[in-house]
């Protein structure tokens, strides 16, 4: 049987605007922080998996090594849309489980402060002649003519479809989800935005794609996060303090989207999340009821709602009632996104899937300060990258 894998050290930088730091500075800060947190050095690492989605062809892993230690170990530069960070963590875990390394580093970084819409680009002028191009034989750009390619619009439809199927949703309900996350981030000093927003402010803000207004969208920002992972066997040779603070990776799962009738029309973020959750609960030997907190991929307020259901935190079809019960507020029965989530903590894409693991670890270690979820033992971190990829990690507090 493959060895257990543990998180030995993990950190995230402050999310937000870092005009004086480039992405290698941010990745270095997160890496050196994670190594210090773990009580080890680059010389102990057997593998690096690194992600920087916007510079996916640039080799962020090797660029990072130049600043923190070129030890000659294998580097895997990974890119998997918004699941890039989780993919980096999972890559290191697979290497450790395969016995190819007993310790490794996963890091993700993005510089996105001030970035606008990240898909769709700007429309090219129609060419002088109507000539068919591409797999649809389109004679002109189709974004805006045949639906929308912008993420706020895609995820708006995903939330609206859930509401159509099960009822109970409204503009106000989605805005209330955002209100929760903006309230949660007031306790997170590393969040990009820490100002509470009223429901009226959220609903009255600039409409991006109904029903998502600007504060209901993930916040583009700069940031990095890094984790040092270690095999269970190796961990036993380390100090008692390292063993006490280590967090067990009870499940690590990555899925892609299986074919569904409508997936070519509207990305199906539901099936692959449900599949990943099912696998993760089975691997970890826990169920949704056992989770003390959840960090899920609220890239838009409309997305958070559907993932309550996909992660089986509520009965199928019952996400609106579940939210209305207050369960997902930090003082509720199933706190979700106590970090502030992507809407308020921020979403530096490749960092996100490690930063949400950091948030869970922070609580499991009892180090979350003002926003600590009391006596947290088990937590789940989830990300979705459109295309699609879903990463889920279930984490457990050390019994030492």
């Amino acid at each position, binding site marked *: 049987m493959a060895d257990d894998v543990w998180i030995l050290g993990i950190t995230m930088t402050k999310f937000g605007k870092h005009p004086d730091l480039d992405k290698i500075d941010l990745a270095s800060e997160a890496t050196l922080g994670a190594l210090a947190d773990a009580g080890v050095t680059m010389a102990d690492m057997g593998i690096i998996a690194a992600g920087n989605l916007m510079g996916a062809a640039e080799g962020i892993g090797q660029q990072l090594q130049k600043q923190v230690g070129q030890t000659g170990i294998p580097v895997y530069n990974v890119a998997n849309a918004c699941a890039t960070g989780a993919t980096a963590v999972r890559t290191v875990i697979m290497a450790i489980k395969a016995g190819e390394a007993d310790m490794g580093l996963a890091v993700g970084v993005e510089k996105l402060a001030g970035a606008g819409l990240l898909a769709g680009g700007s429309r090219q002028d129609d060419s002088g002649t109507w000539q068919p191009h591409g797999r*649809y034989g389109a004679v002109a750009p189709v*974004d805006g003519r045949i639906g929308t390619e912008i993420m706020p619009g895609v995820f708006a439809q995903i939330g609206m479809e859930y509401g159509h199927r099960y009822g109970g949703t409204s503009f106000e309900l989605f805005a209330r989800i955002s209100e929760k996350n903006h309230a949660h981030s007031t306790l997170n000093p590393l969040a990009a935005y820490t100002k509470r927003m009223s429901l009226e402010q959220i609903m009255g803000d600039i409409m991006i794609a109904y029903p998502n207004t600007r504060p209901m969208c993930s916040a583009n920002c700069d940031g990095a996060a890094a984790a040092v992972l270690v095999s269970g066997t190796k961990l036993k040779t380390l100090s008692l303090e390292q063993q006490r603070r280590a967090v067990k990776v009870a499940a690590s799962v990555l899925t892609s989207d299986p074919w569904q009738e409508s997936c070519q029309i509207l990305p199906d973020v539901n099936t692959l999340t449900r599949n990943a959750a099912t696998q993760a609960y089975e691997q970890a030997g826990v169920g949704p009821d056992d989770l003390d907190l959840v960090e899920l991929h609220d890239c838009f307020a409309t997305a958070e709602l559907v993932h309550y259901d996909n992660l089986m935190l509520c009965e199928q079809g019952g996400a609106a009632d579940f939210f209305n019960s207050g369960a997902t507020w930090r003082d509720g029965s199933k706190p979700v996104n106590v970090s502030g989530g992507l809407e308020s903590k921020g979403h530096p894409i490749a960092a996100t899937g490690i930063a949400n693991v950091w948030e869970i670890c922070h609580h499991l270690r009892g180090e979350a300060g003002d926003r600590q979820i009391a006596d947290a033992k088990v937590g789940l971190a989830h990300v979705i990258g459109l295309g699609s990829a879903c990463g889920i990690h279930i984490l457990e507090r050390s019994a030492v």
Partner: protein
Amino acid sequence: MADQIALTDYLVLGDDPHLVANECTSCGARFFDRRNACASCGATAFTTVPISTTGEVRAFTIVAFAAPGIPVPFVAALVDCDGTSVRANIINVEPDPEHVHTGMKVKLATYPMGPDSEGTEAIGFGFEPIN
């Protein structure tokens, strides 16, 4: 009459404009773009099938902020046409939540996009409410 060309090759013009899909002859999965093999079952033979010109809005958004050059607001939607999902704009409707809702019945509509330098007219499509 000047020549016409459809916005995409899955829009068929003429007296009875309609959409067509590539249907997998093995499992029946439908695709609007060309496929090397079926994403559902892996088979490689496809046949062209017509899509119903009426449907029901299963999801929509009203895009108010888009890439430069794209006129806003517009309604983007997923339309269920007798079991086949179609991506399209909802047109000939006020683009606000009072006039658009999930479950509304719609039908295919075409519109001229203008002539190119050789006088060929491109024809786009959307779905409009059935009154």
